[in-house]
């Protein structure tokens, strides 16, 4: 049997064929036992499905059913939190950002301290005379925040020569 005829038989059974097509199917059924058998099977299947479809009637109307759910949602009370737990939650809400800011400040100040830490030996200096004719002494004025190196010609050298090599006078010339 052709697939086209099978489809037409289904449509015939459902009453969806035009009058012309229905007459054509009637003619085919008259001399085609296979088509007759298929039609009988289809009729049986439709009948079984129609008679045995389970029905689940709602106890109330659809609108009433959903309105009940909506009312239940609206009237739902938030879960009560224990007072101690609630206090902890509110405290945590404050403590977390405060702790974060404190940590940042601590790290910032610590880093600045690292960067600007004053070396207790910072005032120490090495002063070296590179000429045998020149001596030096140094001191630090704490009040003026000044470190001073004072250069002077050695006394015996100075007495011996009033030479052109007098460094002290030469600097300003």
């Amino acid at each position, binding site marked *: 049997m052709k697939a086209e005829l099978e489809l037409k038989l289904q449509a015939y059974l459902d009453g969806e064929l035009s009058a012309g097509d229905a007459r054509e199917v009637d003619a085919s059924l008259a001399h085609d036992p296979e088509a007759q058998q298929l039609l009988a099977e289809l009729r049986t299947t439709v009948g079984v499905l129609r008679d045995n479809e389970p029905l689940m009637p709602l106890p109330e109307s659809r609108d009433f059913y959903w309105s009940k759910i909506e009312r239940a949602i609206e009237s739902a009370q938030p879960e009560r939190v224990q007072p101690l737990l609630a206090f902890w939650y509110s405290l*945590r809400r404050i403590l*977390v*950002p405060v*702790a*974060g*800011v404190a*940590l*940042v400040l601590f*790290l*910032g100040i610590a*880093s*600045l301290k690292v*960067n600007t830490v*004053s*070396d207790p*030996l*910072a*005032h*120490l*200096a*090495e*002063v*070296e*005379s*590179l*000429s045998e004719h*020149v001596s*030096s002494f*140094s001191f630090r*004025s704490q*009040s*003026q*925040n*000044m*470190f*001073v*190196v*004072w*250069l*002077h010609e050695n006394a015996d050298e100075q007495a011996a020569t009033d030479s052109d*090599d007098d*460094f*002290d*006078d*030469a*600097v*300003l*010339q």
Partner: protein
Amino acid sequence: MSRSPFRRPFQFAVALFLAMFLAFPVQAANLKLDAKLVWGSDEPSKEHKPVDPALAATLTNTFKWKHYYVITNVVTDIPSRETRKVKISEPCTIEITELEGPKIEVKVIGKGKPVSKTVKQIQKGEVITIGGDAENKCAWFIVITQLE
């Protein structure tokens, strides 16, 4: 999965910490120094420019001379671990080297001959002065301060 409430402040703190550590190399950048040759005298002079009042006060409070005048003023940038020669007068040059610490080494060279060497940790606001007697009961000073 819930996120830890400490996560964001912690991330911020870590980022800040890293940023501060990354700032360390910036500190090791050029050392900007101001070097002045100053003449100290008991006699006033109209020919020379007096030092600024702050330095004048510092020098007056430390030394015996009444008047201090700027003869030369040189600002120099010294890259890390490098040396710069600064000519402060015809016969006198100073060689300043930036050292680890940060320290500076100041070598005074008079008439081409090294006279003294000073190695000192320099701090902002501190004044390093190398001086000596000059004729007519005057004095000379090489005043070094850190600008940056």
